[in-house]
């Protein structure tokens, strides 16, 4: 298993260099460097407003963000020039911090449309509703759901916890190579947190990498990362092993924020 100790070997899945990003004229990311190898789980931690969610969204291709400088290579390709749907089809997945409601479209129809878009890209035959149900059945078990959530419009009337589970369900069905989790733990009670963490752990594997964006260390009690980064004021100010998360939990972010100001 690649991990913190083997960081110098293995194939780089994502390589971000000097990434500077602005939204509505404000520079949020001020030069981010990050390399994630196949099979690694990286956590990005940091105080509110540090740019964590911006990093997650810009990697997924959100149109509101402007890349000022720098690069992001995914499987050696220029990720930033790809459309959001092209990134998804290449295996990039963002679990949204605030999942969006889509009126009139059932969860089941939505997921099948998404899976079929990916299958078309891979030259595989599309799944009809019946084949899809079989795929779905196994995945639902992983997040502790029956199919009652599948005939409801996407995220409509879902509780905060249900929305987050729905993101993890999509992750399980779409089987991305790079899964970015944007504050998936926020708003979850401890049971939901454990379910989500368990589902993520089951999805870990030598070919799949994770970038977990979180404010708190509590999700990392259940998903042990290979690398922990601290993002403060638009830059990664410190990287380390899983123990860094515990240190942050004990000491807070202020000591690092000060360090960022000095540099």
């Amino acid at each position, binding site marked *: 298993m690649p991990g913190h100790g083997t960081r110098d070997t293995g194939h780089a899945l994502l390589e971000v260099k000097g990434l500077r990003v602005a939204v509505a004229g404000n520079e949020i990311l001020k030069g981010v460097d990050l390399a994630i190898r196949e099979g690694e789980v990286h956590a990005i931690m940091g105080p509110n407003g540090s740019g964590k969610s911006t990093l997650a969204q810009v990697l*997924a*291709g*959100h*149109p509101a963000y402007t890349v000022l400088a720098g690069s992001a290579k995914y499987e050696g390709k220029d990720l930033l020039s790809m*459309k*959001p*749907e092209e*990134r*998804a*089809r290449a295996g990039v*997945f*963002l679990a*949204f911090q605030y*999942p*969006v*409601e*889509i*009126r*009139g*479209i059932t969860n089941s129809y*939505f997921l099948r*449309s*998404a899976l079929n*878009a*990916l299958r078309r*890209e891979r030259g595989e035959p599309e799944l009809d509703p019946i084949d899809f149900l079989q795929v779905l059945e196994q995945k639902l078990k992983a997040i502790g759901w029956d199919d009652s959530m599948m005939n409801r*419009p996407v995220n409509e009337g879902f509780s905060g916890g249900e929305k987050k589970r729905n993101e993890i369900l*999509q992750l399980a069905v*779409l089987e991305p190579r790079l899964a970015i989790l944007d504050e998936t733990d926020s708003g979850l009670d401890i049971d939901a947190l454990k379910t989500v963490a368990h589902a993520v752990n089951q999805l870990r594997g030598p070919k799949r990498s994770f970038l977990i964006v979180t404010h708190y260390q509590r999700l990392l009690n259940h998903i042990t990362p290979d690398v922990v980064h601290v993002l403060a004021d638009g830059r990664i100010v410190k990287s380390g092993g899983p123990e860094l998360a515990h240190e942050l939990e004990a000491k807070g972010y202020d000591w690092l924020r000060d360090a960022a100001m000095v540099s």
Partner: protein
Amino acid sequence: MAHVEQLVGSYRAWAANGASGAPGWLKDLREGGIARFHDLGFPNMKQEAWRFTSVAPIAEGSFELAQPPARTPKLDDIRPFLLFETGYRLVFLDGFFQPSLSTPFFDDIQSLAHVVAHRQDLVRQHLGTYAATQDRPFSALNTAFVHEGAFVHVPAKATIAEPIQLLFLASGAKQVVSHPRNLVVIEREARASIVETYASLGQGPYWTNSVTEVVVGEGARVDYHRVQRESERAYHVATTQTHQGRDSTVHLHTVAFGAALARHDIGAVMAGPGGTLILNGLYLLAGQQHADHHTTIDHAADHCESHEYFNGVLDEKSRGVFTGRIIVRPGAQKTDSKQTNNNLLLSTDAHADSQPQLEIYADDVKCTHGSTVGPLDPRALFYLRSRGVGEAEARRLMTYGFAAEILGRMDVAALRAELDRIVRDRLAA
């Protein structure tokens, strides 16, 4: 006003001729209707209820009363408009009943003219009782020409399992007007499902001016579906008026795809306590189409519940108008009323007007309303794209969802499937 005079003249000629055999009470009803229409004339945009809709193409046009069609269509001709070929159905062409295409049931599911001639006792107490004409010129005009249309009577405690199809076809003859008049009586604890469809075999322009009264007895339930898919050159003016007794349920679904100019007045009176109403509508317009839905839900009794959902999908230069008036009468305590109107603008030239009007005269009630007008939600668009769905498909999917939200509330699977197909075809175009 020349055109008002022309219509009154054509009424006089008709009343003296073909319609002279009617019973006295019906003649009186007609005379009342034409007098009212003559007084009111056509509505204009200075009137509150017509602020956003000009009827100039109708008022300034010249329309002859439709004549009996020269040729009776074959079943093959009307098949595209039938959901199924079993069950009861009444078919009309340019307002004239087509017995050879219809499957009536004694005097209970029959042409109105037939029932007036044979069982006027079933009709007399209801016809013209529910659809107001005081300030409704089109309804008054229809009442002047009351003669033919669909009659449905479901006796107490009876259930008609398969939906009854009422099909109003236009031949496409130019500059003609028909005034279909429908009466639906669902007696105490009875149950029925009805699909009323307006469609055309030709282009027109022609004008349909219909009125449908639906009276629902104590503990009864009706699922009423109305599909307007007239020719895109047609003018369609209609009133649907329901009247509910105690503990009754009405699900009224309406879909408007067609006509150059369409105005649909929907009125629902909840006259007895414990009633439930779902008013569920969709308008899907493109080109220069204009559709105006004017709804009035009248909570006249306590402990009633009404849920109103209207979605509009407006493309190109089309315009959608929605007025949702809710009246809660004094004493209508524990009213629970919810109204939403959402309009999706697919082009910068499309336009929607949405006006809720709440008039609440009771204090222990729950009334909510919400309306939106705007383009596709960019957040949802990104969400779909981030899952691998291409931009064009994502837009189509979201637009479809807007329509599917309304269609999904309909219980008749064959109708849902047919409307679904029409929506998909329109979105693919």
